């Protein structure tokens, strides 16, 4: 296999552009110079973060494992039983609370869990006071890959926010996700990259677009400037991606272009094909990480308040959490189905060899929801699952139970530090912590 050296590819590009009156200059790109695709010296593989998110919580009585400890000391609970095949890579954290005022059902929990901050008053569902953990990490560890982050999900438009109403919507179509990740501009290892002269031309377009955004920013309110800035960031990000296309293609050993998924996954019996879609989305996200196209992936399985119909259920999920009497056998079955899909995601990452282990060993996937017990919208004893050891920084095959009413922010701070970031604190007010959850850290 031959790979054209970078310098000569650039020369080709210059040749193609020769004769044109205007050069395509991107001075701002210099700030990224030297960052390339090199990984931190203490890591053979990049560290990645994954999120698996579902709506409407769990049934804590059937969720919390009865014993704590490592390995054979603890067994999976009824609701976690579908994770048996990945128990060795799993850590279950129970007993932590989202320590924010529970003012908005299905909102306080997710905002408190993922941003660490106090949710907005009222019902402003998109009024996230700050970035969600995935976007926060993407801003810090996503800057050297083709995509800063990828948001997808079988049954949700996602809740990845930069701030109030600044959302990165989740891609629901496996086919569209495939096109975005592995369509034009993706090269397999060993593939002769074709330097397309239009990349540089597209960057010149985006430069002109950015100039218009900069002009407009001087004429609008402070809030609107922020909104334009988000747009501008997106434009710059796309420019950067086009520049990265000219860089070395991925050469991680397991990187392959996956098979294209089906164009459509129609509902069966009036139910969305959540499990199959999630399986395909998970495999695409895993391969995108294996090819180092992205290091932060969010898999939004279902939304807060999701009223999706599941196989075997006689009502939508959210309605069941409130209207199903007794021990909520149907809610229980739905949680089991969701955990099956979480297991599918973990297995997709574990199926990819990387170094002496697997891709999963070099990342951590956080699984969480918007409430614990849906019936009462509780945000105490919050559902938190971790998969993968983040390059040996987390214990696995463990159930940790906090009895002290500690904040869920501890888990987030542990994750942040496991990603190689030395952050002093996470969260605000009662939800603020300055220490991670030491029981999960090695």
């Amino acid at each position, binding site marked *: 296999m031959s790979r054209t050296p970078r310098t000569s590819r650039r020369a080709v590009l210059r040749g193609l*552009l020769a004769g*044109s*009156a205007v050069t*395509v200059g991107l001075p701002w790109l210099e700030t990224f110079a030297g960052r390339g695709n090199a990984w931190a010296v203490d890591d053979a593989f990049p560290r990645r973060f994954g999120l698996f998110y579902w709506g409407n919580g769990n049934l804590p009585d059937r969720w919390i494992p009865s014993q704590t400890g490592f390995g054979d000391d603890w067994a999976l609970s009824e609701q976690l039983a579908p994770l048996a095949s990945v128990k060795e890579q799993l850590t279950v954290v129970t007993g932590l609370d989202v320590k924010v005022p529970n003012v*908005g*059902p299905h909102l306080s929990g997710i905002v408190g869990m993922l941003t660490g901050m106090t949710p907005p008053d*009222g*019902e*402003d569902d*998109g009024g996230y006071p700050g970035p969600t953990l995935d976007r926060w990490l993407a801003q810090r560890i996503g800057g050297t890959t083709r*995509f*800063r*982050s990828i948001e997808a999900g079988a049954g949700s*438009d996602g809740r990845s926010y930069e701030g*109030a*109403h*600044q*959302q*990165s*919507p989740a*891609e629901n179509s496996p086919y*569209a996700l495939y096109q975005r990740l592995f369509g034009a501009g993706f090269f397999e290892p060993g593939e002769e990259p074709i330097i397309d002269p239009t990349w*540089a*031309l*597209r960057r*010149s*377009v985006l430069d*002109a*677009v950015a*100039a*218009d*955004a900069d002009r*407009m920013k001087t*004429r*609008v*309110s*402070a*809030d*609107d400037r*922020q*909104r*334009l800035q988000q747009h501008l*960031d*997106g434009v710059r990000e*796309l420019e950067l991606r086009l520049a990265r296309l000219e860089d070395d293609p991925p050469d991680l050993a397991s990187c392959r272009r996956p098979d294209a998924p089906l164009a459509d996954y129609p509902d069966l*019996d*009036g139910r969305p094909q959540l499990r199959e879609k999630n399986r395909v989305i998970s495999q695409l996200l895993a391969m995108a990480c294996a090819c180092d196209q992205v290091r932060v992936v969010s898999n939004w399985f279902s939304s807060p308040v999701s*009223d999706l*119909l599941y196989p075997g259920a*006689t*009502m*939508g999920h959210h*309605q069941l959490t*409130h*209207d199903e*009497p007794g021990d909520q056998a149907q809610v229980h079955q739905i949680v089991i189905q969701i955990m099956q899909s979480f297991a599918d995601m973990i297995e997709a990452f574990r199926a990819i060899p990387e170094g002496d282990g697997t891709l999963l060993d070099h990342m951590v996937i956080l699984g969480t929801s918007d409430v614990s017990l849906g*019936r*009462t*919208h*509780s945000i105490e004893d919050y559902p938190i699952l971790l998969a993968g050891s983040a390059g040996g920084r987390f214990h696995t095959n463990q159930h940790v139970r906090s009895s002290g009413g500690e904040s869920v922010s501890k888990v987030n701070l542990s994750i942040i530090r496991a990603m190689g970031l030395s952050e002093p604190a996470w969260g605000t007010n009662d939800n603020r912590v300055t220490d991670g959850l030491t029981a999960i850290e090695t």
Partner: protein
Amino acid sequence: MRGSLILYAALAAVGCATGEVPDDGDTDTVVDPGPEPTFDGAFTPGPATLRRLTADQYRHAMRDLLGDVVLPSALEPDVAVDGLIAVGQSRTSISQRGVEQYETAAFDAARQALADATTRASLVPCEAAGPVDDVCAADALEPFAQRAWRRPVASDELQRLVDVTATAGGVLGSFDDGLVYGLATVLQSPSFLFREEVGVRGDDGVLRYTGVELASRLSFLLWDTLPDDALMASALDGTLTTDDGLAAQTARMLADPRARDGVLARFDDVYQLYELPKLSKDPFVFEHMSATLGSAAREQTLRDLGWLIFDQDADFRTLLTTRSTHLDPELASVYGVQAPSRDGFALAELPADDERRGLLGQISFLALHAHPTTTSATRRGRFIREALLCQEIPDPPAGVNTSIPEADASAPTLRDRLKSHLENPSCAACHLITDPVGLAFEQFDGLGRWRTTEAGTTIDPSGDVDGTAFGGAAELGEVLAADPAMPDCVVWELYTATMGRTPEIGEADLLAFLQKDFAWSGYRIQHLLAAIIASPGFRELGAPEESP
């Protein structure tokens, strides 16, 4: 959910003319209302908004500019804030994925347009001398950018577009291939994707929208797309900023067929009809459910609204009482009536003794505000309170057990089971507002089919709303239509949709006037829109807000 409580209080204090709701389209009985009221209250303009085009507005604008091009279905999604996409437009931005989608769409559409001989001829008024021809590029790009950006293009901006075109034309060896890049630049620019309306301060110190900004406000409000040449001309020659000029354009635009699209888009937003194509119902419970039913229901409601507002120019309150509706065979079978046409939609008259009347007898209400397998008195009641009466229903408090009893012999109907809502004080505070209203529609199942029993027990649809008793859904429609809160709410919603933000306290007098004027007009939506447009709310603005 819909705006500030302070303003609600202010509005509630204002009495409105009220009276009997006329029968369908029968406006002859309206007595002489006297001279039209004029606005002499206090007014402080609210802040400017920077609205992102909705996905539909983007599509309409692209077709205005480039002809009948194929556009991708996936675009940055619209998001409702405070219950309205119109408000979400002013609050949301464009995500990374959205930037990619707009980029792809811009290039695809520009290529298609230049490949079509007729469209190309309308876009390129000159013969290019070679792959790079800056003069010809400018001749093509200046009018194109002016239409897309709804404003004159500055010389440095035009130069940037010409430069991009020249570079690309040189590299690719073709003028048209280069022009694709220039057009795509115009179409990805914030000047196209956002509505920049910042105004200019007059000699009297008042900040007013400029002529071209007014043109944009008018055309997106009334047509859901870009200004046409006549509107732009009246903006550029100064006519549009005069009272008479603005009124003339408003009248012209309301009379144009495009007004139907634009005005119906506002109601699509207000009544959340855009949710209908995604309608999810369990086909094992509802044998009439189909993949097309939700979209057909949306079409029904929009056709009814178009008929009421444009064909009839009738009392808007009849939306809740009319027996006239537009049906296709599928909808007719769900409603259990004879289809008015063998295929497609046609106007039908529902039986006089039917409980099914107006919007509240439609799938657009009955199925959308229900659960996937059952009805929901709470959701239906909440829609009426919030979307029809502009009342605010708080979310349930946290930590409360929200389950209701299982259906059994002691509680066969939803009404029986919901009693627990009303017995628990922490639930009753809100469910007393929603449930009794919603229970009026229990004779329609979760899809909107007629039924008289639930679990073998006869359904009781009677109740009272804020002290006025009703016997069932049809009577409730009459009660709601006669409630001044209903037309007041439409004024509030259309004003909010026009402004792209919830009204501020300084606009309370103006809203009260518009409500009074709406009543004076016999509750005609076209009159209301013209009144909003003529008002200072449409023409004046506050300075941009800085962060504290």
